[in-house]
C-alpha cells in the first residue's frame, strides 16, 4: 500500500490491492475525529505551507517535482515548470482561504454553528471522501485532495496516470509538517477500471468524487450504494469564441498559449475556436495568425515529444485535414516533422479525427447570436468558453454560452488555470462535499 508518511522516500509505482484500500479506509476513518477538532483556518494554513513549497526554487519538493515531471507527465521541461507554477500558485493558504470564503461566506460554519443569511447552519464534511481521478494533467490530484481536506474529510485519492508525482509529493510534504493531517490522507495507485478495488473504494466512501470519461464515471457511479453521494466530473471540453472587436494578434497569441498549456489535454483547453466574421476580422486570416503564434511558442513553451502512437495519429489528423481543406476551402498549417502544432481552418465545423497535442480547429461564426447553434453538439460536455473582443456583449456571451452548457466564461489567456474557487462544471467544489445541518430555535 502506498501511504506516504513523514520522510516517505519511495514515491514508487506499487499498485494497491482491494485489501490495501480496505485497510486505508479504516485507518482514514479513524483519523476523522482529530480532523474535526482542528479549525478550518488552521487546516488551510498547514496545507498552504506545503503548497507554497512547490513555488520555492530552493525547496527539495519543488526540485524533485521539476526533475521528474517531464518524464512522468510527458511535458517538456519548460512546460512542466510553467504548469507547476500555474498550479501551485493556487495552493497557498491565502488562495485556499479565499476559496473557503467564496464557497461558504463564513468558513467557520465548518467548525461550529454559524449564522448565515439569517439561518443557523453548520456544514459537515464526509467521514470518508474517496477521490478517483483520471487524466494526466499534473496538479489536478492536489487540487482534488485540498478540497476534501479543507472540509475536514479524511481522503483516499487515486491520482490520474501521469499525475501521481505531484499528488504523492504533496502527501509526502504534508507528512513532513503535520503528521496529524497527513494521517487523514492516503494516496494509492491502481490501474483505472480495476473493478474489485474500485468497488471496495466506492463502497467505503461517504462521498466519492470521480473524474474520467463518461463511461468511467458511469461505471463507478453504478458501484456506489444508494446512500453514497457520487460527484462525477465526466469528460468535458473547452472552446474559444473570438469576437469581431478583438485585436487579432493579441487574441491569436493568447489562444495559442491556451492551446499549448497541457498540450490540449485539459477540459479547459480550447479544442475548437469560432471567429466572428462580419467585421474587420477574417477567420482564415485569424487562423494564420494562430499558426504563427504556435510556431513562435514552440521556442518558449516547447511541446512534449510525441510517442510513436501519437505521432502516427497526428499524421492521420493532418492528412485528413489537408484533404478536407482542398475539398472545402479550408487551410492547414502545421509544424511539420519539427513540431506537433497543427492549426486547421475549416469554415464550418465538420467531422474529423480528434485533434491531439497542439491541434486546434478554427471556424467562422457569422455572429455571436448564432453561437448557440455552433455549440449545441457539445451539449453536456461543454465546460470552458474562452473569449476575446465581445466588449459590451459579454453578458450576452455568458448567457448564450451558459445555455449551451458552459460553466466558465473567461478571457482566452485565462483558460488554462481556473482559480481554486471556480465553479467546477458549474458547481461549488467545496459545497459539493458537505452536508448542512440547520437548527431552528424554539419560539
Amino acid at each position, binding site marked *: 500500500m502506498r501511504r506516504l508518511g513523514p520522510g516517505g522516500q519511495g514515491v514508487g509505482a506499487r499498485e494497491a490491492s482491494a485489501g490495501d484500500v480496505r485497510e486505508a479506509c479504516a485507518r482514514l476513518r479513524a483519523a476523522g475525529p482529530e480532523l474535526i477538532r482542528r479549525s478550518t483556518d488552521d487546516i488551510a494554513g498547514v496545507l498552504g505551507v506545503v503548497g507554497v513549497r512547490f513555488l520555492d526554487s530552493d525547496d527539495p519538493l519543488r526540485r524533485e517535482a521539476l526533475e521528474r515531471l517531464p518524464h512522468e507527465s510527458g511535458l517538456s521541461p519548460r512546460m512542466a515548470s510553467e504548469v507547476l507554477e500555474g498550479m501551485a500558485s493556487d495552493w497557498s493558504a491565502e488562495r485556499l482561504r479565499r476559496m473557503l470564503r467564496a464557497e461558504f461566506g463564513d468558513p467557520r460554519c465548518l467548525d461550529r454553528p454559524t449564522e448565515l443569511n439569517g439561518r443557523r447552519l453548520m456544514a459537515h464534511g464526509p467521514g470518508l471522501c474517496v477521490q478517483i481521478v483520471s487524466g494526466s494533467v499534473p496538479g489536478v490530484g492536489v487540487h482534488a485532495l485540498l478540497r476534501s481536506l479543507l472540509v475536514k474529510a479524511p481522503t483516499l485519492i487515486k491520482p490520474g496516470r501521469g499525475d501521481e508525482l505531484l499528488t504523492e509529493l504533496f502527501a509526502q510534504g504534508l507528512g513532513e509538517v503535520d503528521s496529524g493531517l497527513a494521517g487523514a490522507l492516503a494516496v494509492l495507485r491502481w490501474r483505472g477500471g480495476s473493478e474489485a478495488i474500485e468497488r471496495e473504494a466506492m463502497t467505503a466512501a461517504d462521498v466519492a468524487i470521480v473524474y474520467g470519461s463518461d463511461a468511467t464515471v458511469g461505471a463507478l457511479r453504478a458501484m456506489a450504494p444508494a446512500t453514497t453521494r457520487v460527484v462525477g466530473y465526466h*469528460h468535458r471540453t*473547452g472552446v474559444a469564441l473570438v469576437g469581431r472587436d478583438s485585436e487579432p494578434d493579441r487574441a491569436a497569441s493568447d489562444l495559442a498559449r491556451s492551446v499549448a498549456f497541457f498540450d490540449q489535454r485539459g477540459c479547459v483547453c480550447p479544442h475548437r475556436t469560432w471567429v466572428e466574421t462580419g467585421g474587420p476580422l477574417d477567420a482564415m486570416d485569424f487562423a494564420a495568425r494562430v499558426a504563427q503564434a504556435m510556431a513562435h511558442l514552440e521556442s518558449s513553451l516547447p511541446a512534449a515529444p510525441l510517442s510513436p502512437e501519437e505521432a502516427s495519429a497526428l*499524421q492521420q489528423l493532418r492528412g485528413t485535414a489537408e484533404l478536407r481543406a482542398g475539398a472545402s476551402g479550408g487551410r492547414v498549417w502545421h509544424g511539420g516533422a519539427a513540431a506537433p502544432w497543427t492549426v486547421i481552418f475549416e469554415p464550418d465545423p465538420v467531422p474529423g479525427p*480528434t485533434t491531439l497535442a497542439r491541434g486546434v*480547429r478554427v471556424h467562422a461564426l457569422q455572429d455571436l447570436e448564432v453561437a448557440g447553434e455552433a455549440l449545441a*453538439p457539445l451539449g453536456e460536455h461543454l465546460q470552458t468558453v474562452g473569449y476575446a473582443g465581445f466588449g459590451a456583449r459579454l453578458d450576452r456571451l455568458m448567457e448564450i454560452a451558459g445555455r449551451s452548457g458552459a460553466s466558465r466564461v473567461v478571457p482566452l489567456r485565462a483558460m488554462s488555470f481556473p482559480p481554486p474557487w471556480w465553479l467546477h462544471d458549474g458547481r461549488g467544489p467545496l459545497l459539493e462535499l458537505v452536508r448542512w445541518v440547520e437548527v431552528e430555535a424554539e419560539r
Partner: protein
Amino acid sequence: MHPRFEETAAILEARFAEGSAVPWTDDAFGSHAFAVFVVQYESCSVYRSLCDARGITPANLAAWTDIPAVPATAFKYFDFIDDGAGAPEATFRTSGTTRGDEARGRHLVPRLSLYRAALLAPLRAALMPDRGRARFISLIPNPVEVPDSSLSYMVGAAADTLAGGIDWLVDAAGAWSSETEAVCRRAAATGEPVVLLGTALAFQHAIERAARGEPSLGRLPDGSRVMETGGFKGATRHVSRDELHGGITGLTGIPAERIVNEYGMTELLSQLWEPVLVEGLAGRGVHRPAPWLRVRALDPVTLHPVPEGRDGILCFFDLANLGSVAHVLTEDVGSVVDGRVRLRGRAPGAEPRGCSRAMDELMSAAGQP
C-alpha cells in the same frame, strides 16, 4: 468513369490472374502505379486537391513512393471514388471499434471483379498451395447477410471459385448454427481436408463454447487448415496467439503449422498472408503481400522510410485499389524486410490524454458521409 479506368482495370486483372508467386520488378510495379495514379488524380477531386497542395501531379511524378498517401482515417470522412462514377458495385464498411460512437469508414468499390482477382491468387497460395479444391467451413458470416463486409465478400468469392461447398456456421448476429457439430462430423467422416476460416474472436468464442460444454467445432480431417484473421486489428486481444492456436488445435486437431494468419483491412482490397503452409513455422509472424501490394514502414514523425527491420507505421500502395485510392497510410506498426511485413500491432494512439472529451467525435456524431 475515367476513360482509362476499365482498360487499366482489365490489364491489372489479367496480371493478378497470373498469380502471386513471382515478385514483380520495381519497374513493372512502378509503371502500373503510375497508371493508377493518373486515373485517381484525374477522376477524384478530393484526392487531386491533396496532390495539388503537395505539388505532386502525373506531370512531375518521379517515383511511385512520391504519390501522396491518404490517411486510412480519411475513409471515415471521404468517399474516394471517381467523381463521375455511378453507384458502386459494393460499399464495404470498417467494423466499429471499442469506441462505439466513432464514425465508421467506408470503401466504395466500383468494380468487384478487380477485388476478386486480387484476392484469389494470394488466398490460394496461402491456404491451398497443395490442393485444387477443398470444402470450406466459415465462422465468418455469409456475404448475403453482411453485404458491407469486405471479409465476408472475400470468403464468399474464394468459396465460389476454390471450394467444393461451404458451410456458414456463424450468422451476422454472431449466433452459431445448430449444425456446427454435425458439419464437423460430416467433414471428419469424409476424411477430406477442409479450410476453416474465422476471425480470432470467433475462434476464441468456439474455444469458450467448448469449455462450457456447448456445441462447438470438432475434430477435422488430417491436412485441414485454418485461416485466422483480425487478430491484429481493433480491440486488444484477451489471449495470446499461442493460446489461441493451442485452443484451435485442441478443438480441431489442426496443428499450428497449418494455421495461417491473414492481414487485411477494409481500406485495402489486397491482403497479406503468412506463408506457413509453404515455409512451415519459419513463415509464422511474417506477412507476405501480393506482388501488386507494396508496403513501406515509415517514421511516424518524418514519414521517411525507416531502415529494413525497424518498426514504423505501415504505408501501403495497393494497385487493386484502382477504383478508390491506392496509397494508404495506416496506423498499424510493423517492420518490413525484403518486402515482407512483421506486424507489431496497431498504434492505439488517437485517444487524447487528459480530461478533455474527444470533441471531434461529438461533432461527428451526425455527420457521416
